[in-house]
């Protein structure tokens, strides 16, 4: 791979590039899915190619090819330089990369059991057993299961001398039961919606999820939702389960702290951010107990945002984002860090694969658990009136990340510190900083889960990236709820 990269770097230099990076990626993935007792997806895929990013005349250029012959790679590098020169013809600001020492490293993500070593029959047997268990419950009209594995191997070389080889294995699985009755379609998912749980681990994750054990209960809940009361409209104390809180973090903290958004680079598509530069170290983002980090280091756990180096050769870091409620940090890259006076990138530049330009992405943006022991049941017991919401069903937020609305699959009324009746169609809405400032309790480490969001879209051409979000159940006071159905009764 070093030879292939050297063809790219040398050609870029000869053509006049002042900086060049070559990323060669070899990836393999497997996707299995069932639906109502039949195969809905059975595919293996592999992809190998090179992406070359250069700076020439003060402009960025990027070209990618799957032709790894010397001719193909050199042609691709020449194209990247030509594109960079075209970029430099339209600029109102200078491009500057903050320094980063060259690194030489070889890193493999933790993986106890290679998921590709597991017999496909075993995977399918598990999925079909879940499918059968879901459909065994009367009233379930659709059962969906899925299992996904990916092995992502990358070689990174730069004109500054970096040589970094990383291999990351990710696994994920989940299922959903749907029930159609009358004029409603209800749904329950396990262990999370939209594909389940994903982490940077091997098949051991699938075993730990104990998927089949929960199938009966999940199916029964999907059916029971039809006879549950409609979620009320008004202001309530709400408790979010950890998977819903993880998505709340993703949307209302993770995206607005992306410095490229803040600087307007995503204005046409993903949007900008309310977190203008003057807010750094001045904005009271949340209450005193809100502590959030962006942590890509393996010490944080095997999240989808865990790595050793990002895709421009910057070492993984832990950046405090919110410290005791105060906004303290952005997600940065070498070309954006200088805007906040940083002398080093936060190491957040990531690409979907070899054929995509790396852009600022979330790593593992996680809320830290409470320091005093507190279980979910204890949190419920300490809540006089409130509503517990579980598992995301819909999510939407404006293009500056102020106003949001989330829907969940299921709610539980809390009265006198006890979990009461089931509620259907729960939703809540609010403004980001008002919401985080209303948080008055969060469960401790035992209730904390590092969730994976495998489907975060950003960039043009759009890139889908996995991000990690650690969260524990938390309570928020006086939150507007039920507006999703307002006016549609």
């Amino acid at each position, binding site marked *: 791979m070093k030879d292939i990269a050297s063809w790219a770097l040398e050609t870029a230099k000869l053509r006049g590039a002042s900086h060049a990076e070559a990323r060669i990626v070899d990836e393999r993935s497997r996707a299995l899915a069932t639906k109502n007792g039949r195969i809905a997806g059975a*595919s293996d895929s592999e992809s190998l190619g090179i992406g070359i990013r250069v700076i020439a005349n003060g402009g960025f250029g990027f070209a990618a090819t799957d032709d790894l012959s010397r001719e193909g790679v050199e042609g691709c590098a020449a194209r990247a330089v030509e594109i960079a020169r075209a970029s430099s013809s339209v600029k*109102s600001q200078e491009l500057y990369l903050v320094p980063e020492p060259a690194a030489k490293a070889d890193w493999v993500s933790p993986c106890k059991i290679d998921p590709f070593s597991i017999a496909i029959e075993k995977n399918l047997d598990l999925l079909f057993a879940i499918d059968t268990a879901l459909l065994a419950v009367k009233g379930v009209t659709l059962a969906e299961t899925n299992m996904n594995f990916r092995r992502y191997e990358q070689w990174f070389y730069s004109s500054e001398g970096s040589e970094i080889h990383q291999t990351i294995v990710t696994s994920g699985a989940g299922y959903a039961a749907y029930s159609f009755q009358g004029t409603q379609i209800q749904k329950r998912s396990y262990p999370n919606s939209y594909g389940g749980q994903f982490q940077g681990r091997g098949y051991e994750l699938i075993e730990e999820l104990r998927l089949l054990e929960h199938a009966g209960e999940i199916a029964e809940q999907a059916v029971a939702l039809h006879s549950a009361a409609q979620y009320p409209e008004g202001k309530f104390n709400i408790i979010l389960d950890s998977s819903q809180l993880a998505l709340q973090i993703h949307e209302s903290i993770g995206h607005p702290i992306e410095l490229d958004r803040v600087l307007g*680079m995503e204005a046409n598509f993903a*949007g900008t951010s309310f977190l203008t530069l003057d807010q750094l170290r001045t904005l009271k983002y949340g209450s005193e107990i809100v502590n959030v980090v962006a942590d890509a280091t393996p010490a944080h756990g095997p999240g989808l945002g865990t790595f050793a180096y990002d895709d421009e050769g910057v070492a993984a870091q832990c950046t405090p984002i919110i410290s005791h409620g105060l906004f303290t940090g952005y997600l940065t890259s070498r070309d954006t860090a200088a805007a906040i006076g940083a002398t080093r990138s936060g190491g957040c530049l990531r690409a979907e694969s070899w054929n995509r330009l790396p852009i600022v992405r979330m790593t593992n943006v996680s809320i830290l658990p409470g320091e005093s022991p507190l279980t979910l049941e204890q949190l419920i017991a300490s809540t006089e009136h409130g509503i517990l919401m579980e598992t995301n069903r819909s999510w939407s937020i404006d293009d500056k990340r102020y106003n949001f609305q989330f829907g969940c699959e299921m709610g539980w009324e809390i009265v006198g510190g006890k979990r009461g009746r089931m509620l259907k169609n729960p939703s809540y809405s609010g403004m980001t900083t008002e919401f985080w400032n209303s948080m008055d309790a969060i469960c401790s480490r035992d209730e904390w889960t590092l969730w994976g969001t495998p489907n975060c879209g950003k960039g043009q*051409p759009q890139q889908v990236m996995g991000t990690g979000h650690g969260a524990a159940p938390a309570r928020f006071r006086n939150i507007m709820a039920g507006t999703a159905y307002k*006016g549609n009764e």
Partner: protein
Amino acid sequence: MLDRNQANDIFDKLRRLSEADEIELLISGGRSALTRFANNTIHQNVAEEAYHISVRSAFGNRTARATTNKHDDDSLRRVVQSSEVLAKVQHPDPDLLPMPTKEEVAAAASADCGDGAVHRYFEATARVTPQDRAQGVASMVSVAKRHNLAAAGIFSSTEIVEGIFNSRGVNAWYEQTLAEISVSMIGSSSSGWQKANSPDMARLDPVRLAEVAAVKAIESKAPRDLPPGKYTVILEAAAVLDIVGFMFWDFGGSALLEQRSFLNDRIGTRLFGENITVWDDVYHPLQAGVPFDGEGMRRQRLKLIENGVVRAVTYSRSSAKRMQASEMAGKVGPVRPTGHGFALPSEIGEAPLNIVFAGPPQGESRTVEQMIASAERGILVTRLWYIREVDPYEKILTGMTRDGTFLVENGKVVCGIRNFRFNESLLHMLQNVEVMGVPTRSCGEESFDMVVPPMKVREFNFTEATKF
């Protein structure tokens, strides 16, 4: 660019390597380039050439797929073996059909397919260079600077091929170019936006798009607060596309059979206003896209909605067979393979992706300007954003307005307003369309490209407002 002969050669090699009962090759890819700008600067600029070789093997009623981007003999051997290994261990699918023959494809292609030919490859688009795109961006940045605004957006050009070959004789090939421009104009308290695409680069006018976006940014500056509630809205065509696209994924036989469609128990009933008639028509002159499906069946023109009544949904070969055998068969309109299936195995099944709204009768069409002039009080919406489904059966969707939302009073645009969140049922919305314009090819970010009209809709349900 990979051509049809090269693709045929690849399929011949795969076929020789195959030990399966049947083999299918889906090959797709091409060249694409995208120049991205923000703050009046090109900050990202990319190009790639890549192709995917996707092989489906079938042993009786077992099938699976493997995909590679490598063309060498070892990789082709491996992709065939991978698909075969995966297929052999599948649980049998009693509804899996043999791959179609070329005779079956020809027989299913009724008059609704025309001759099945479309011309959407333009040399001028394929020849666009990085310098050409930079020049186009420069022209939009000039507009921004003239108005003291910051421009952000994209200018892309692509040429793609897609082919399908199977061991029973199907051999279909498609080539297309597409150029696309999206531009946002950013002011200190407001923004405006426009987007357009076409297979023919000559049909795009970056300066005109930039000027319209700039006017929206200027006219919506210092936006006023307006209380949420039900308003008459004038939705520009892109806003219509953004929201209505969410319902067409339910227009499939598989969605009905799996009871995940809002059309369950509703086909043949009047769901929308009488002024709503919708086709799926890949052959429409303003449409783009592949005229055959994931098994090589030609897409048929379908009248999905006629005067507010859902008349038909799409089918793959397999879902048509399953529907014909189901108790729903007599209640869901015509049941036949329509050429809308996704590549197998598929979680979704099928869907119409070439939506064309019928325009209003002659003399009843109104431009957006005429809709504004006829409005006593209402909201003009440029685009909608971050739309998600709140209720799958009542089709309640939530989302935000974005990049140019205006108060209209007494027939005039009065001022920009802060953006609203909506929670609106599509059933309700399409029952309340007062006036429509001429359908145009439109593109947004929330749905696939369509031919849709701007609409004036009463009682559109805004539930909250944001801070900008």
